């Protein structure tokens, strides 16, 4: 377990800037999610932290000391990949013991530690199996065991659950969170799945186009995305162009308070599930254009009388063609200066 600090970390490949001056502080024992779309550089960042690659600029610190030039072998930051990467020619026991062997630990200690970690991952009888005989979930747990038995300074997970089917994914999430808590490991979880990030992590770092746009708790991130890019990425967002003056933002949905005093163009953002649809009262008049039932919520596309469209999700039932009134709470409107 270590405190990880990224200072001005950048990485470029062949004139293409993958990561651009990242600054990040990860507490000792924290589980932080690195959230971003495919190609945003998440895996590259993990490889930099693990020492599989060197940054083009900046430095990486573990517990305050510069590890940027320390080789992978000595860094003790272990990545668990999506395809688990178990050594196919070694048994489960030999796989897990691999790092311990590298440290020249005595045979008896290795046997004991392997037995213990297998209990923790709930696969005690599997010592002599070969990886190809295991199921996807079992392989993933062994890969985690192999990393955790070494009590690494950082446990880096690269979209570890994408290959598992849904039910397994949910149970594996819980499992990893509890494992991390028990072992008090500093853990960075890379994912493109918002729900996964929110469910598992104490903090979420949003990485878009190689930049850390926002690092915040899941609640803050969800309710108050810092800018339009983050809001778009998090999805299910409506955008309303409008004008801001004297602390008031005006748009098709009405007037909302903002902390800024300047006079300028601005864009307001409201989440689908913060849009309120009512039959008789509200700020703007609209008509239901489309309706999609999705289980928990029903999504409605609403055409505003004043022009423009928006999406709303709620539990109430309306019919296509219905006239509705659209409003949203003051605090639910996020305003971004353009």
């Amino acid at each position: 377990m270590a405190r990880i600090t990224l200072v001005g970390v950048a990485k470029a490949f062949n004139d293409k800037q993958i990561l651009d001056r990242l600054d990040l502080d990860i507490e000792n024992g924290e589980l932080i999610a690195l959230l971003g779309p495919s190609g945003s550089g998440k895996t590259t960042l993990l490889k930099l932290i693990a020492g599989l690659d060197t940054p083009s600029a900046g430095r990486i610190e573990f517990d305050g000391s510069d590890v940027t030039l320390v080789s992978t072998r000595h860094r003790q930051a272990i990545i668990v990949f999506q395809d688990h990467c178990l050594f196919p020619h070694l048994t489960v026991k030999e796989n897990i013991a691999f790092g311990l062997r590298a440290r020249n630990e005595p045979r008896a200690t290795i046997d004991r530690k392997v037995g213990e970690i297998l209990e923790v991952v709930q696969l005690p009888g599997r010592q002599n199996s070969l990886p190809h005989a295991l199921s996807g979930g079992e392989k993933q747990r062994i890969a985690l065991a192999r990393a955790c038995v070494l009590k690494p300074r950082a446990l880096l997970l690269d979209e570890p659950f994408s290959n598992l089917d849904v039910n397994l994914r949910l149970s594996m999430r819980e499992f990893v969170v509890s494992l991390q808590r028990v072992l008090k490991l500093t853990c960075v979880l890379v994912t493109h799945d918002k729900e996964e990030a929110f469910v598992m992590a104490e903090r979420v770092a949003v990485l878009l186009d190689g930049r850390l746009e926002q690092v915040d708790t899941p609640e803050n991130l969800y309710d108050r995305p810092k800018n339009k890019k983050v809001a778009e990425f998090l999805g299910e967002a409506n955008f309303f162009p409008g004008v801001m003056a004297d602390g008031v933002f005006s748009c098709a949905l009405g007037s909302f308070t903002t902390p800024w005093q300047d006079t300028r163009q601005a864009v307001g953002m409201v989440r689908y599930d913060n849009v309120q649809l009512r039959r008789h009262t509200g700020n703007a008049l609209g008509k239901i254009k489309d309706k999609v039932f999705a289980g928990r919520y029903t999504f409605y596309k609403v055409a505003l009388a004043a022009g423009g469209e928006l999406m709303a999700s709620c539990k109430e039932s309306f019919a296509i063609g219905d006239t509705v009134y659209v409003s949203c709470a003051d605090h639910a409107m996020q305003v971004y200066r353009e």
Partner: protein
Amino acid sequence: MKWGRAVVHLVMWTAAVACVSPLLSLIVLAFSAQWPFPHLLPSLFTADHLAELLLSPRLVEAVTTSLALALLTTVATLLLVFPAAKAAGLYSFRGREALKLLALMPVMMPAATVTMGLHYFMIRVGLAGTMLGVVIVHTVFAVPYAFRILMYVFEIMGEQQEEQAAMLGAGPLMVFSAVTLPLVMPGMVAAATMSFIISFSQYITTFIIGGGRLLTVPLLLVPHVQGGELHVASVYSLVFIFTALAALVLLRAVVRHYYRETYFLNP
């Protein structure tokens, strides 16, 4: 179509027979001491002459030399090819295509032609007539096959396994012996097999560079073909096939003893 299936099966049987019958005819030939025209079957089936042929010191010398040359060629080929194939298989770099072209070129270059040119050089530096000289030439022609196989194996393996091992704290030596080597072992065996067979089968290269000083099984065989002594030629042919097979079976057995069967294709 019913007859379509029949045709296909006929083709399969024809192919099988065509493949196997030469070997069978060799065996028949080997055991026939006398087989004058126009008899369809040998008039004398015997194994007497076999003992004399098989125990002759010339054959023993030829087999020993062939095996030694093949072994040396295999080792030399693997040593040269392994790092280059790893480079071509795992890394992308400028010159990768050129490397592949160079490594695969000996396939297209005629052995006789290349050897005649090298012969002049080897005479100059005193390598003509030596085992080292012959091994060098054999290696040139074994390299493309070994390279192709090993490069493919490295491409399939990818760098992930080695990276994982390093992250878990293994030093370069441990990564090589515990991860890389076991995973590419099937490829190594295949490459070694190809190199061995190629060296074992060489005639004109050994003849030109060896200059008559080195006797291998093919060199022993050819004069008897030229002289039409088929019963001798067939015995030597069978010795050839048998020795090569025996060496390869031994190789595989040794490897299997030390390495578990590996599944390097990601399940």
